[in-house]
């Protein structure tokens, strides 16, 4: 594997991890923008814009865009989070150049009014779809409760009202600075020619104008509020618990990620033995999400509504025990082995590797090889975890509940 890096004069960063033995290649544009970069007047615009990027350019219609990718056999899509919008395609090596050039064209879209009006229907359908997925709803509302006024609590989808009120002009204005080349990273993984990629980027992207694309990075700890939303249509109780964690810029993020695995992995974790093994909850998981200048531990629990109070008692006792007695070396070793084998499996496919490569650069402007990531995980000690627990106090959390129960 060989890492490559180049920057165009307008600030567009191009990075690549070349693996000549791979059977495929993947390419993506990482845009440093998401719901946290929106004002309330344009809530949901980042995600809506992500849909509109597929609608074509002055020379390509939406259908032509989709046909062009499909002619390359590309597995292509995009996703929007609170702070990133990522466009990606995985292809066989012989199609990588064309897939990359297609994305380069699409990064300067037309954003036509008629496409905007039609796609608004699809966005409203997507909002309705997630309303029928209580797990998503609990996580989304839990996040908003935890972050309060902090922009990390902004909704990615927006609301029916904010989307209905959004104009194409507002979207074009948002696009003009958030998609400036200095706010974009073009990343590529697998079997491909880096010089060829840079040559294409130079031809197609060097005319893009740079612009200011600031982001508010205010420190934040969480509101630690409690809220229950009663919904008689639901049959299970859906709990979302959130507590502060470390950011992507914090060297303790490996320790935080392992702590999430120790407490809330699918099997063999503290949650598993306390909640799933005794069949009190069918789902109980916790993970660490490190973000730009902030971080959060998420727990999601799905259970029989009658078990809710008992489960919360158990969770409180579980965190108290961790706070008092820490975790064992065996727990740390197991979490480390699970994390390392998951990484091996993920990184054997260029598409699995692309997201890590891109995000490392977006957040930290550096390259970390798989070997460095492995070392980062291996070097975490029991003492690191103890200090983290002492510092973050994960037992103090924001609590959101959604389900048929009326809870105090």
């Amino acid at each position: 594997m060989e890492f490559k890096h180049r920057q165009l004069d307008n600030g567009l960063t191009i990075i690549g991890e070349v693996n000549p033995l791979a059977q495929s290649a993947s390419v993506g544009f990482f845009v440093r923008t998401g719901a946290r970069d929106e004002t309330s007047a344009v809530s949901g615009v980042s995600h809506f814009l992500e849909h509109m990027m597929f609608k074509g350019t002055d020379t390509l219609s939406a259908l032509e865009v989709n046909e062009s990718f499909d002619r390359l056999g590309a597995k292509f899509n995009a996703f929007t989070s609170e702070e990133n919008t990522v466009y990606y395609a995985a292809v066989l090596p012989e199609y990588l150049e064309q897939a990359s050039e297609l994305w380069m064209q699409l990064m300067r879209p037309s954003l036509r009014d008629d496409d905007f009006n039609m796609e608004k229907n699809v966005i409203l359908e997507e909002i309705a779809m997630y309303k029928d997925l209580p797990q998503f709803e609990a996580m989304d509302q839990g996040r908003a409760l935890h972050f309060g006024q902090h922009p990390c609590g902004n909704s990615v989808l927006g609301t029916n009202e904010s989307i209905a009120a959004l104009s194409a002009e507002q979207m074009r204005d948002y696009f003009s600075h958030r998609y400036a080349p200095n706010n974009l990273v073009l990343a590529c993984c697998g079997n491909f020619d880096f010089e060829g990629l840079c040559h294409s980027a130079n031809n197609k992207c060097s005319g893009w104008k740079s612009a200011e694309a600031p982001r508010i990075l205010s420190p934040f700890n969480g509101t630690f509020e409690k809220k229950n939303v009663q919904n008689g249509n639901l049959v299970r109780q859906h709990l979302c618990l959130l507590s502060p964690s470390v950011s992507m810029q914090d060297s303790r993020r490996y320790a935080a990620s392992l702590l999430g695995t120790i407490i809330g992995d699918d099997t063999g974790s503290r949650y598993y033995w306390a909640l799933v093994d005794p069949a009190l909850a069918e789902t109980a998981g916790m993970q660490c999400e490190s973000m730009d200048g902030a971080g959060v531990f998420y727990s999601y629990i799905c259970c029989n509504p009658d078990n809710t109070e008992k489960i919360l008692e158990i969770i409180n006792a579980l965190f108290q025990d961790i706070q008092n007695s820490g975790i064992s070396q065996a727990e740390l070793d197991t979490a480390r082995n699970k994390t390392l084998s998951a990484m091996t499996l993920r990184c054997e496919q260029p598409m699995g590797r692309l997201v890590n490569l891109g995000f490392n650069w977006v957040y930290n402007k550096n390259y970390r090889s798989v070997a460095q990531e492995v070392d980062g995980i291996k070097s975490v000690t029991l003492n690191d975890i103890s200090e983290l627990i002492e510092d973050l106090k994960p037992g103090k959390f924001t609590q959101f509940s959604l389900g048929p129960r009326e809870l105090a």
Partner: protein
Amino acid sequence: MSKLDFYKLKNGMVLLGEPIDHVQSVSFHFLLPAGAALLPNDCCGAGAVIGDWLFRGAGNRNSRQLIEAIDSLGIHWNTGVSAEHLSISASMEADSLRPALELFADIILRPTMAPDQFELSRQLAVNELQGLDDDPRDKVMIALKEQFFPDPYGRSTMGELTQLRGLTPEKTAAIIKQCFHPSQMIFAISGKYDFDAVCRQMEQFFNGDTSYEPFVINPEYKGQSYVHYPSGGAQVHIGLMTAIPPINQGCYYELMAAVSVLSGSMSSRLFTEVREKRGLCYAVGARYRSTKDYAGISCYAGTTPDKAQETLDVIIEQFNQLKNGIAEDEMQRAQVGLKTSLIMQCESTASRAAGIAGDHYLLGRVRGIEEIRDKIANLKPADVEKTLQKHPFEKYTVVTIGPKEIISNQ
């Protein structure tokens, strides 16, 4: 050329392998003859209970020791129930393979089956089943299979509440005893491994020779063409399915191409006509589904109530129009999409292990990558049209869940 490893134990158990160059991981996949359709009639959901119960102690390890042993090796594992099999799969770094096979042999052949642990496994299965009401997208597709396939092939793999409650540890242990015969098992491995060493180890564990007596099945169509389940959600969730010949009847590639033209990508007909041109929904997609003897193309769409009727009508229209012709460029896009999926599947040890096990069961042999690639490359639009004219979509089974019932205009 892809290389296929094959070995048959004396008792008939099949071991398959496909090495993948340059990877550090290995995955294996067991197909056990304990699918939902193969179980006794009053035991719907027993597969889900068994899949959990097996991991609650095996060999000389109790539940906690077993999970800790698996986790400490960094093994990522899964169980699944289909109509015909209970599958158990595991992925890991190659160094962990030998102890992993020992553990999984214990789990399959020497589960403890403690009654107190059974109650917990059953409670989890009940929880999961009840939770389905909060997931209408999954629920509609489970209900669709129940209506579409002849019973018991459409039986819900998650179970039926009264039957789950009626299961006992004794009854469930008896099912395990009757179904878990090495002679009927298929084992597939892919990634970095030494096949001779794997065979020696498997021979040591799975050499039992017993007579196998399957439960008797008499498939019978009981489903209706349209069923609606009222619910107070935001969307109407639509599931639709139509019959096609099963995979072993010779027109698999033509039908895969047809599904790909319908729904393989973003320029496919359903995405273009339902979402892009009309803005009727966010999620719409079709899939090929086959058991050994029955197959269908299924489709899911979720849409707000006022658009539900139009969504269903447009989907059925697109299904019906397929036999009228497929353009050359549509066909080329379908072909390159199928080829890419195939090659990417071969980069994943877990996908490939599951793929070769499934091939062996459904076709009686494993297709090499080159064979599949050639078949896809040689397809012509006329082949697909001919297949669809010979096996037209005659009727559709439709299930909806949501605040509004719709009428199927087929």
